[in-house]
């Protein structure tokens, strides 16, 4: 795969679609969550209003250089992650910038935004930001492990690290999906998925009650807007990876929308039903319940 200039407008198109889809999707998810809790919830267009309002706010302060760059790191991380992975299988148009690297690039680029964001929040000097980061990083180390094991298992299974090739191997029927050919890996990865979606029982990082909002505490106006933009892109980007690795990818946009929604819903189902873990509890949970599945996936593949 080589670079062509036409990839740039195509990528921007992907980005545009995903942003809009993400804005609607996250609002819908929030609404579903609210309905389960017998609340009315936000209107489906609420995210657009928030975003426009926050970008438009003119009063803003900064705590310094890194504080300023934090949201930039965060959004770059989300956009990059989305664009490094092909969105629609078999479409040259929506293969995005995946020529730059394979699955491993996407896996490690996930941390780019998180790291930059954590640094920016740290410069605000607010202890809650630091506490949130401390919790988030701690939980992440355990949550990422089953996913890493699952990815290794899948890569071994298909003998490739290229996302496109992995999707290609799953074509030809639902039963060819990794979900059915390597169920242990998928289960382990889905456990890990719960840990990274910022929903209960693993959302102590943002902990809306005890700590105002975790790392983003001091961010407001356009900073917050950037982060909100990311908040709609990032889950989709992440789900795209899951979809490609485990659920046969998507050959068209409607299938894409459906699969992303359904995968997202997994975390919602769990989230509305379970209370929140403390960090050390979630670490133990991942090591005790999710890691053995990952090990099994590696051994059996």
């Amino acid at each position: 795969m080589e670079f062509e200039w036409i990839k740039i407008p195509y990528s921007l198109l992907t980005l545009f679609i995903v942003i809009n889809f993400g804005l609607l999707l996250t609002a819908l998810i929030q609404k579903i969550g609210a309905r389960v809790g017998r609340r009315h919830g936000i209107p489906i267009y609420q995210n657009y209003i928030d975003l426009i309002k926050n970008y438009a706010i003119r009063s803003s302060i900064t705590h310094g250089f890194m504080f300023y760059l934090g949201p930039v790191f965060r959004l770059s991380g989300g956009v990059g992650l989305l664009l490094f992975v092909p969105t629609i299988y078999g479409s040259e148009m929506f293969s995005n910038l995946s020529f730059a690297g394979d699955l491993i690039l996407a896996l490690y680029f996930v941390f780019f935004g998180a790291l930059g964001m954590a640094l920016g929040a740290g410069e605000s000097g607010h202890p809650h930001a630091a506490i949130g980061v401390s919790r988030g990083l701690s939980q992440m180390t355990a949550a990422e492990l089953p996913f890493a094991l699952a990815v290794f298992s899948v890569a071994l299974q298909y003998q490739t690290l290229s996302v496109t090739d992995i999707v290609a191997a799953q074509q030809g029927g639902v039963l060819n999906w990794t979900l059915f050919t390597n169920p242990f890996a998928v289960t382990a990865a889905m456990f890990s998925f719960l840990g990274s979606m910022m929903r209960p029982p693993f959302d102590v990082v943002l902990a809306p009650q005890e700590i105002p909002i975790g790392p983003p505490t001091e961010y407001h106006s356009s900073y917050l807007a950037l982060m909100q933009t990311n908040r709609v892109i990032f889950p989709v980007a992440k789900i795209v990876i899951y979809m490609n690795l485990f659920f046969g990818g998507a050959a068209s946009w409607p299938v894409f929308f459906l699969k992303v929604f359904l995968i997202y819903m997994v975390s919602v189902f769990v989230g509305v039903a379970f209370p929140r873990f403390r960090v050390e509890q979630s670490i133990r949970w991942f090591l005790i319940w999710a890691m053995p599945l990952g090990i099994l996936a590696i051994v059996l593949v």
Partner: protein
Amino acid sequence: MVNAIFIIATGLGTAFLLGLLKDEWRTAAYGITLAALALMSWIAASWVAALAWGGAATVDIFTAGTEPPFAINLRMGLPEAVLTLLVNLASLLAAVYLRDTMFKQGRRAMAVLLIFAMALCGIILTRDLFNLFVFFELTVISTGGLILLSRDKRALGAGFKYLIASQVISILLLVGIIFSYHATGTLNIDGMASMSAQLLQGGSLAFFLMFIAIVAELKPFPANGWALDIYESAHPAFSAMLSAAAGSAALFAVDKLLLIGGTQWLPVATAIGIVSFIGANLFALAQNVDRRTLGYSSIAQIGLVLTVLGQRDILGDSYLYIAGGILLAHAISKAGLYWLSGLVEGRELTAWTALRGRPLLIFAFVTFLALLIGLPPFPGFYAKWDLIHTLAAQDRIMLLTLILFGALIEAGYLFRWFGYVIKREQTTERVACTPHKVAVVYGAVIAGWTAAYLWGNLSPHGNLLHTLPLLFALGFLLLEWLPVWIKNTIAIIGLVAWFILGFPDYDPLQLIFAAVILIGGALILLSSYHVQGRRIGFYPSAMLMYAGLAMLITADDSFSFFAAWESLTVGSYFLILRGKHSEPHALSYIIFSLGGAFLILAGFALASQGVMDFQLQALGQVTEPLSAWVFMLLAIGFMTKTAAIGVHIWLPGAHAEAETDVSPMVSGILLKAGLFGLFMLLMNMGKQQLYGIELTHVMLWIGALSALLGNLMAIFQEDAKRLLAYSSIGQMGYALFGLAMMNHLGWLMALMFVINHYIYKSMLFLSVGGIAKRTGTREMYRMGGLITLMPLSFIAVLIGIIAVSGVPPLSGFGGRWIFYNAIMTADHRLPMIIIFLAGPIAFLYLFRLIHTIFLGQLKDEHRRLKEAPFWLILPQMIYVACLLIFAVVPGMALRHVDSYLNQFFPNHGLNWEGLTITSSFGYWSPISIMLVIGTIFATVLAWLLFVNRKAQKVKQFNMVFAAERPYRPETTHYAWNFFAPYRKALGFLTQPLVTRFWEALTDLLHSLAELLRRFYCGNGQTYAIHLLGFVVVVYLLKVGL
């Protein structure tokens, strides 16, 4: 050539002559004594010259004009000449040293000294048993006299105990001689040797008595309480003679006696020797008095030589070279140390701190210790190398193990002592620097280096003192008077020049290591410009380490490899010891390193099977089942240097407590020596199996566990440098893991780690060092908010942590990408789980490092801090540039290595065509990644700048904080125990089990020594019983059972 009998005649005659002088003519008497000793030395020296270089042959001197057995004969051969020279020179120097005492005591003391020297020469020269007895008696009498020269009140008691013991010995010897004479009808040693079969058949008791008497003269452990009292209480000049001269003479007597005993008595000598060596060294561990420590060490060294004498049957031509090397090293160093002890007032080991501030005396001290331990380039090093190789070739593995174990204990207490001297609080007592005494000490130093040069010349492996890098390092000793910036410039030029000189001959693998060591070393040295003054001791140590490293990567044969290994170990030890609080850590480092080095020595010795010129490539031809053991020994040795888990406990302290510019050297560069060793090992030996277990598989687990536990321990550190140090354990674990995978990409990943770890760890250590310099603390929670005050340090740390964590687009990602491709073809999958767990943990400590130092709340006392010194910042900025370049074009360094690795693993290499690097499984385009991320980042930033152009900078406490306004940075900065939840969940994994294990082991050794040393109760009668008990036990073991 002057007849050798004049040595004895001069001594005896002058002693009588002194009796004729008036007691007041002390100057004259002293002059005559010196002249006599000088003459005796000269005669011996002329014989040494004639026998060693002049082609002269061994000469027999017939005293009464007839041949033995009708008259006594003396023999002057090369060993006799060297030993008489040693005895006479030692006595001459002792006489100079004793000038004041001699003047006070008068001519009688001088006469006794002369008799002592003469008697020792007699013991060496004579070939007649009864004559030997006579000379021994003369030694005893003169020893008794010389002991009384001391001002120490205990000397009288010690002398008395000595006389009791000597009488027991004399009686045994005399009875033995009588019976032997009865059995053989001759007193001539050679005559008896030719009839030894006859003697040993019926009169083995007779021989035993003679043998045990002479052996008892060596003061073997444990029948030696009386000797220790002498060593402790006698005048140091006499202790020096007793240890160096009398010990050597008695050893030579044993050697002569073993001619009679033949091979069947060699094991007895070996057993007594090795028990002495280990026992005395063990006891020395519990000592804190200098002269008694030296006494134990003397006994140990003499025991070692006795062990060598016991190996006479297998040593062949190298017998004299080995025994002589160890003996000479012992004699010179022990004499030197005793003389040095005379300059120091206090008797505690710590009292030697008085030597500080006298660099030349410290140098003398170091020389003596190195001689004693047998470090390169001293004779003991060559001798031990040959000895261990011969033992291994002859399957005397148990003995080999015991010798190395004893040597390790010895190195332990000697280096501990050195640590005291350099680091403990200096005593107020000054060194008594009388010029003639100091001159004597320097005389011993010169003798030591001369011996080093001679032994190097005699060695079949080539003289280490002819190797340019070592000479360059030693040359800095002569430049110590220059200011730092000149020495630093010379050092940098030297490193770069050596790289350029060697450049055409390096293969790609060596080139990577050479670049890291030499160019990398020069880069780190840039930071040394920030030090003012002369910085005495730094450059010889640092350059010794670099010399060792430079020699290591080009070594072809096992000897030069090992010599380089020891040099870099010792150099780095001195370097680490320079840190303010690094005394215990440097000690732990050197003990682990020497332990590792001894394993390597044993490994090479086993592999070579007696081939002295053993090429490293020949490791591949070692056959099973030996090869697995060789592999294991070498691998553990190298892993000690990379601080693999289990042998890692030295690293955190050593790296954290070292000086600012030393930490990057020992972390960024020195650790790579271990990796290079492992590369060499795996390249030549490949996979090995021991009892069906694949050893590389074990290494895989060790690597994974090191990565996990190193990272885990790093996140709980409050000290920034300790955090980085633990992180090194983790990083080296990754590299070890890559190597142990035994596939193409695994090795490439390990090499990537070599480069990356050098760059980012050196950079981080420099940044943290600079910050610690400014803030005066290394505790991270005491810092905070330094980003605006130290922006350049911040940038270095930021780039550093992104690179370490492996986040794209920096070079750490390349390492991760290669890692994932490597594990696709790995044979074993389970260790990956641990590595996967270890990976994200790195984020934890990295974030903590940057957050708690640079972000969060600025402390009041830090508000006026300045950026770190220019010379610390400059190399960091160069590293930042390097990291960026290496991130974009990793192929520059790696593609050549990649194709080089094809000869070991032809499959699964990388394809470097075009901008994208492809493997059999995936692809990666560093330049595209950099451009894409850069573009996205710039676009988002531009957008933010556009919508947020009026952002105002606010003050520190302007933030939303539960309706309160915080007012103290200390209470607002969330930093201490940063990962508390993590500790709750996984803290149990960081229990210091390994530390406890090693501590328990050293405690056990110390308690054992403490308990057993009560055996020496100080009572003369008990000592006599010990002696008799010893005799009986040896007899029962040898003859009776």
